């Protein structure tokens, strides 16, 4: 096969998956529109949680002191990033959390026989935008306000670097937070694990700099949840060493590979339910 046909095939595959992603999103939205009340109550519940997150912002600005070497305005950027990321994570969260149910009831069967990556379908089949809306709005407002108030430069490098680390955070979120849900292939109930993971996510409510040294190392290198919401802000404030810059971009790749490996193991282990 020559290079040209290889690339055209790759391109075709790409557009196909993109089209499927679009369809999943469209269908999820259409299905949700059938239950409008659920959709709006999803928004209001998320607003409730948003209130909790914003109370941290209030505490930090009311205290008015530097925390972990960050000014209140700078901290607002970190919390804003955390809130925005929460919104993005919540888009795929229904897919993740329904995984164990799909395994238990054997509805995976009808997906395995499709000539599309199973992991792709499982990850994006149920997409929910209701929780994205309040979080994205609040998160972006906080980031922009903090950025402006702290008097940080708006240059091509600062903005594109910030966005690059946001994107790397999105990829890392996907791999890192899908992993615990994959345990449902082996365990009867992984509710406890899912609940603990959700709680770990909330550590990002505050910039990592307030935590102890060992906790920071743990959360950056072993279980790199801190990378997700801290690195965009740390990059902006020029607090990343070259090594951390590299690690912040390498970790998502590394964990994606790990996630793929565990997934293929998990599917081999799958014993379809129901006869």
């Amino acid at each position, binding site marked *: 096969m020559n290079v040209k046909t290889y690339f055209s095939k790759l391109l075709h595959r790409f557009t196909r998956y993109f089209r499927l992603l679009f369809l999943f999103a469209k269908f999820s939205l259409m299905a949700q529109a059938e239950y409008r009340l659920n959709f709006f109550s999803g928004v209001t519940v998320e607003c409730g949680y948003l209130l909790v997150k914003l109370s941290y912002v209030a505490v930090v600005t009311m*205290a008015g002191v530097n925390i972990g070497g960050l000014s209140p305005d700078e901290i607002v950027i970190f919390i804003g990033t955390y809130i925005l990321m929460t919104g993005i994570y919540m888009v795929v969260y229904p897919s993740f959390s329904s995984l164990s149910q799909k395994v238990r009831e054997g509805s995976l069967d009808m997906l395995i026989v499709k000539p599309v990556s199973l992991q792709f379908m499982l990850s994006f089949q149920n997409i929910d935008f209701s929780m994205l809306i309040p979080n994205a709005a609040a998160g972006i407002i906080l980031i922009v306000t903090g950025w402006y108030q702290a008097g940080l430069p708006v240059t091509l490098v600062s903005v594109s670097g910030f966005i690059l680390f946001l994107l790397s955070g999105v990829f890392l979120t996907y791999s890192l937070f899908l992993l615990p849900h994959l345990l449902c292939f082996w365990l009867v109930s992984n509710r406890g694990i899912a*609940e603990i993971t959700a709680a770990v996510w909330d550590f990002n409510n505050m910039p990592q700099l307030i935590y102890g040294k060992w906790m920071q190392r743990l959360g950056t290198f072993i279980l790199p949840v801190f990378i997700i919401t801290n690195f965009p802000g740390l990059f902006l404030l020029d607090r990343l060493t070259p090594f951390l810059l590299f690690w912040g971009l390498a970790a998502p790749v590394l964990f994606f590979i790990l996630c793929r490996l565990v997934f293929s193991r998990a599917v081999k282990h799958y014993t379809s339910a129901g006869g």
Partner: protein
Amino acid sequence: MNKYRCIFQMGLEYALEYRFDFLFSMISCIFPIIIQFFLWSAIYLQPGASIDNGYTYEQMILYTLTAGFVSKLVIGGFEYEINEDIKNGGLNKYLIRPVHYMRYYFFSFLGKKVPSAVILLSAVAITTGVAGIALKTAISPVHILFFLVSLVLALILNFCLMFCIAMYSFWVTDVSKLFGTISIVLVVLSGGVFPMDLFGNVVRTVSHILPFCYTTQFPTDILTGRLSQNAIVSGIAIQLLWIVLLVFIGSLLWKKGLKRFISAGG
């Protein structure tokens, strides 16, 4: 009284059945405590900082360690069942029996609280005990006694509050999803995340009038030793006042709602 003891026991057995769920939800209680502990340590312990928000560092740490558990303890949960009763007509089975609906749920609520109370109170005892030694602040036995009294009242107060909110189901059929939002907002307003006193004079004054703070912040503040004897006594009086008022409102709503329920044909 015997039948309500029975209901209490049923609630207790139910809670024991679901003890593992409860243990897991405990974890979601501990993590915010860790975050807030680091946050307050970072704020108070930096060189040259003088924080003037009405709490010393020791009091704030004690508050952080206790408030999360207290709010978990007083939180409702029965409002969903009441909503189900009203929506699906399960209410009828209470109407034909010689039980008082509000009392039924009250005793069942208390029963369900027993296992969590044991766990949560031991958690509070351990954390505050350890913190007390580490921070070299002793909690006086009088304060512990007052804390327990106000905690029981807080539990009752929150029951009345949630019962009134649950009565809303008579007028709007599907509010179960809204309860989630309400209970989160209530946790914030009652000081389950941060004390309301931190957010300025206006918030403080308003929050001291409204009932919410008396479900979490007030008992917790007693334990931190922040309140004077007078403030404690008057706080308990306000708790009692709100309980009486809310019982009154609750039974009024119940009567009105029931009329509507019956005229709608059950």
